[in-house]
């Protein structure tokens, strides 16, 4: 493997219970900087990884509300900017604004949610490049723990003990 990777130990597991055992063990040692690879959403692994609920939800909510306000604000202001009478209706006719209000709510909320995911999941990663293996997107589970020297060797042993199919020690 090319250099420039975060030094540490990467274990590749075929069995979910093996992977979970390893993760639990490493977290017990106080590691919050694990990187766990898996090919599809999985409860057990997520629990093992022990993350809280994603902050995305707040973004969605706020963005949605912004959208609603923006929609009504826009329509009210634009109707006042050059008031024209059509069909004898009052220029600021609230019922006619509901549809656009709803659509912009959804639009802004959806786009912001996407943006949030990109930001949260791509930017706030462990610093530097963490080594990755192609089978992780197929049928393997990967557990990477940053470590060097003796500690690295210890974790290597741990993973093998836990039944990793393959363990790789990444030098800095």
């Amino acid at each position, binding site marked *: 493997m090319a250099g420039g990777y975060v030094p540490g130990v990467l274990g590749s597991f075929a*069995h979910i219970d093996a992977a979970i055992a390893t993760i639990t063990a490493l977290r017990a040692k106080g590691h919050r900087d694990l990187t766990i*690879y898996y*090919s599809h959403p999985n409860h057990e692994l997520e629990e093992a990884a022990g993350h809280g609920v994603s902050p995305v939800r707040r973004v969605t909510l706020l963005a949605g509300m912004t959208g609603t306000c923006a929609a009504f604000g826009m329509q009210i202001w634009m109707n006042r900017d050059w008031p024209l009478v*059509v069909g004898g209706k009052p220029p600021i006719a609230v019922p006619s604004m509901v549809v656009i209000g709803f659509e912009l709510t*959804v639009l802004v909320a959806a786009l912001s949610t996407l943006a949030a995911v990109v930001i949260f999941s791509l930017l706030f*990663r462990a610093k530097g490049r963490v080594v990755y293996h192609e*089978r*992780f997107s197929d049928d393997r589970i990967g557990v990477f723990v940053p470590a060097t020297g003796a500690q690295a060797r210890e974790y290597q042993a741990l993973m093998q003990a836990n039944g990793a199919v393959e363990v790789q020690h990444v030098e800095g």
Partner: protein
Amino acid sequence: MATSIVDLPTGHTPYPPITQTHADVTRDVVGTLSPPGKGYLALLAAAVACFVIGAATFLFMVFKGLGYAGYQPPIFWSVFITTFVFWVGIGHAGTLISAILYLFRSPWRTAVYRSTEAMTVFAVMTAGLFPIIHIGRQWIFYWLLPYPNARYLWPNFKSPLMWDVFAIGTYLTVSSCFLIFGLVPDVAAIRDKVTGWRKWLYTRLAFGWQGTDNQWRHYSRAYLYLAALCAPLVLSVHSVVSWDFASSLIPGWHGTIFAPYFVAGAIYSGIGMVLTLLIPLRKALKIEHMITEYHFDNMAKLTLLTGTILFYAYGMEYFVAWYSGNTFEQTTFWRRAFGPEWWGGWTMIVCNAFVSQLLWFRKIRTNLTALFVISIFINLGMWFERWVIIQSLSNDFIPYAWDSMNPTWVDWFIFLGSCGWFSMWFLLFAKNFPIVAIQEIKEFIPMPRKSGAAHGGHH
């Protein structure tokens, strides 16, 4: 996904048959991307050809005038709006299956939602063209957008057409995002399997997806919310489209039943199109073991439900027209059934209300040939539904002004072009992206355990 559908409703046969391993799934799906055969290329060529014909016709019309299409006042909207509503409607099934059924934890959606979602996006892309095609001065269609302009004039938000601009715009944006978003992990999986230019391509399309715990965590949550946001769109978009008609005062349009009636129709037509597309597709891509009778049975049930709602809506329209004592409504509906264009009305009723009732029989629901034939009828019927609705214009308040619809080659070529445009995108998608959601299928297949609890195992 975090709040996932792994825990099947009790009594449900787990699906797909768990004889597969995760590796198999990846392999099979990646297999669908194998270099295309002659048949595929021929189809693609045909689609592109149709699209080119349509585009050329459109240009002709832009330079020579709408007059070459078959408009006959008082029918100021004709085949173009008919086709617009047709394609918008098609879209809805996709979102229903991918978003609403997702929220309802309906397991059978997994195998089919990707293809239907793609269909949605392409259908809406097609529909989106028509408002522009149909206006008198296509070159200034952007005047409908609220942007600061030299005319110091903002658009009229009281116009249902403005609602349309926002509804369709939002729908297209959000459903495309939903599709692409769902694709990312799968694209990553393919990236890790292929080589050459594809590697290069998918590496970029995967947006650096590695499936780390952190990514999955936000991803799952976000997917849930996107689904939650898409769900109401299924109901809203076609309601808004229906208000283009319902908020006018034309007899035959001016009905409170329109929104639900249109939404049901949209889903009905959408699933019709799904059937038309999937039945051949699963054979062509050799994924019969992933998309099976089980799915078609369920989709057929959905068709039956919406078809029956339509049946009711049609009946109700006629009843209300009669019961209202409103002579204008009465005349319109009388002529819809027995007027000079009676055939349109009856095509609609037979194809939608009657044909859908065949699906009460399980034998038919699970007979793919029958389903395919029925789906063709559905597409036809739903196009005619819109045609018939538009036709209400031909006999409204002032008898002196009455006329009948009379499309020309321009209308038909542009309609053909829209079919070409849609098929082109769908074919390209089917051959270049996973038509089945790898990661979601995998969810159904328990990970192997050292303790040997689960079967499977690895090579």
